[in-house]
């Protein structure tokens, strides 16, 4: 999957906005949205929130977890544990990037949040690399990783699959070659 596809999937997440216009309830294929009244918060998908923000028709309220203290706790938690800790949102990386790029004026202490989320991401991806490395070197048959998000899986997906494939080919070649010389030893 392309990272932009993962971002596209992440845009379905709901976020709270405060519109400055009024509109009746709208009925979309994915569900109902609204009604929109100026000054009253309403939950909408991120794609709509960003579009309205760019047209200056709303103010985005940062999600609860996008807060400096909470993120610091999560980061400490992640650094302590060997396994992956559950993340506040299954698309935390994409949401952070989208919201901080388009609505950083509505999010307090945006620079610190960006740094904290990057730290958390780095820790988790490092753990993923270590785990993939030990999986291959110990030639395990299967592994179970909890609490990974789609974006993190996507970073290693292509490489892991291709390399396992190559290794399988090499191994089968080795085995078949190991068998053939016996046949030719007359």
């Amino acid at each position: 999957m392309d990272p932009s596809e993962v971002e596209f999937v992440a845009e379905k997440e709901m976020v709270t906005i405060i519109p400055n216009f009024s509109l009746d309830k709208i009925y979309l294929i994915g569900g109902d949205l609204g009604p929109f009244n100026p000054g009253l918060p309403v939950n909408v998908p991120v794609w709509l929130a960003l579009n309205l923000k760019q047209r200056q028709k709303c103010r985005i309220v940062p999600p609860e977890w996008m807060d400096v203290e909470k993120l610091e706790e999560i980061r400490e938690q992640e650094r302590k544990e060997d396994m992956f800790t559950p993340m506040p949102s299954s698309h935390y990386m994409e949401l952070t990037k989208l919201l901080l790029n388009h609505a950083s004026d509505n999010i307090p202490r945006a620079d610190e949040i960006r740094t904290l989320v990057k730290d958390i991401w780095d820790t988790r991806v490092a753990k993923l690399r270590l785990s993939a490395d030990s999986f291959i070197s110990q030639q395990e048959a299967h592994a179970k990783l909890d609490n990974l998000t789609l974006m993190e899986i996507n970073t290693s997906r292509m490489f892991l699959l291709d390399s396992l494939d190559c290794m399988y080919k090499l191994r089968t070649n080795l085995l078949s070659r190991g068998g053939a010389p016996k046949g030719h030893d007359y």
Partner: protein
Amino acid sequence: MFVTDIRKEFYDIVVNQRVALLVSLDVDALCACKVLQALFHCDQVQYTLVPVKGWQDLGTAFLEHKEQFRYFVLINCGANVDLLETLQPEEETIFFICDTHRPVDVVNVYNDTQIKLLIKQDDDLGVPSYDDIFRDDEEEGGDQDSGNESDGSSEPSGKRRRFDEGAIERRIERQRARREWEARRREILFDYEQYEYHGTASAVVLFELAWVMSKDTKDMLWWAIIGLTDQWVHDRITHMKYVTDIAALQRHVSRHNHCNEDEDNSLSIDCMRICFEYDLRLSLYQHWSLYESICNSCYTLSTFKLWSIQGQKKLQEFLADMGLPLKQVRQKFNSMDIAIKENLRDVIEESSNKYGMKDIRIQTFGVHFGFKNKFLATDVVHAAAALLESVEKDESGTDNFIKALDCLSRSNLDQLHRGIELAKKKLMAIQQTVASCICTHLILSQGPFLYCCLMEGTPDVKLFSKPLALTLLCKYLLKSFARSTRNKRCKILPLVMAAPLDVEKGTVIVMGIPPECETSDKKNFFGRAFEKAAESTSSRTLHDNFDMSIIELKMQDRSKFLDALVTLLS
């Protein structure tokens, strides 16, 4: 007619329609266009953007688009000429004109249906009242009536003759009154249209529209600031007006700054911050070295007389007086010693007072976003103007327009930096041309004005075939000349400048600017003067530019045109 409520009478009408935007080629128009585009994007209004260079372009663009569009928005063009006469539009076409050119043509002012002027009425317009210039033709009907009566009546001939005499007397009286009225009308119109000047920047007017609709953003405010600064850089408005408009914009700036930073949670560094600066009048000094900037800025160039050896020495003294080592001063500004940069403005102001430069500092605004990007409004004006008129090969007018428009967005910083480089080249070319003109005494006094003609082979003369660059050159030249000449009378003369425009066609571009004076009101009479001179000598001229004081002329007709101008203005 003037639009009183710009939101109801302009924006609410076009928001549901497709509009054609016809934009003139100057930085203020670009900024106004950006503000309007941002508003259109928010409300998803369909528009077509057409850059127009002059009246011919305007006519062509109008003809191309008049089938599809009913609403036309004209930015910085169209107010100072009878638009309906020039374009001959249909009955339903409506023009919204946001233009800084004054005086506004009286037909445009008094037309109620098709022409809407987006101009603030507190700009000192001085439009003559309706009755002074327009008059219903009643007396014709009156004459005929009395004629008919006298014809149709069956009264005795004696009475008829007396009636006839009375009618004839009344008619003569009416005709005399009419001739007087027409003479007065001609005088009023002549006074009104004699001088050309400029009003409030279009970008500021459109920003105020956005503000009224509560849709103003910092980006729009920055564009409004650039529009106003463009008027000041190209010497279109008086210093008084500039300061007043800066104060108005300063209120908006503090409102925006206050809105966003009133808690401890300060904004991300990437957000745009506009701040008021009382900064130096040295062009592009933060993107150049201080020494280069001093050598190439109008104010310092003319005060120190840097084209002479004396001037160079004085400059060295000035730098020594401030305690700035030459090595530091010749370095790129960003790499200068921090200790020197900190107090630079105050140090320069103190020293410049000693050398007779009382106004080395000017009120302006600066913007910074991200850690690296800091720009003053004048920097962006120079960059955009240089991009707009870039004479590099393979670049058409429309390409330049789009590039200049792009450089105003925050996301196109490389375009802006390219513009700054081009602007540096332009300023250096201007400085060299000014130096050579003064040293070779190319500026001659023709009596009522000064005249200077750039020859074909002058280096960088292609740059000066464009109106904005030529304006800057004229301004620098006149200022420097006024300082360097000993002749007291010559100091207060206006300047007419000619530069080659197109070698194959043999045309020159001629431009006139008002005299250099501290309290000048920047009113330019050359527009009308050029028209009359061209008419009287039947020279082959093209009055295509929206500024009437810039015309194209065939090279062969140059001398007779000048003679006519001299006789006209003496």
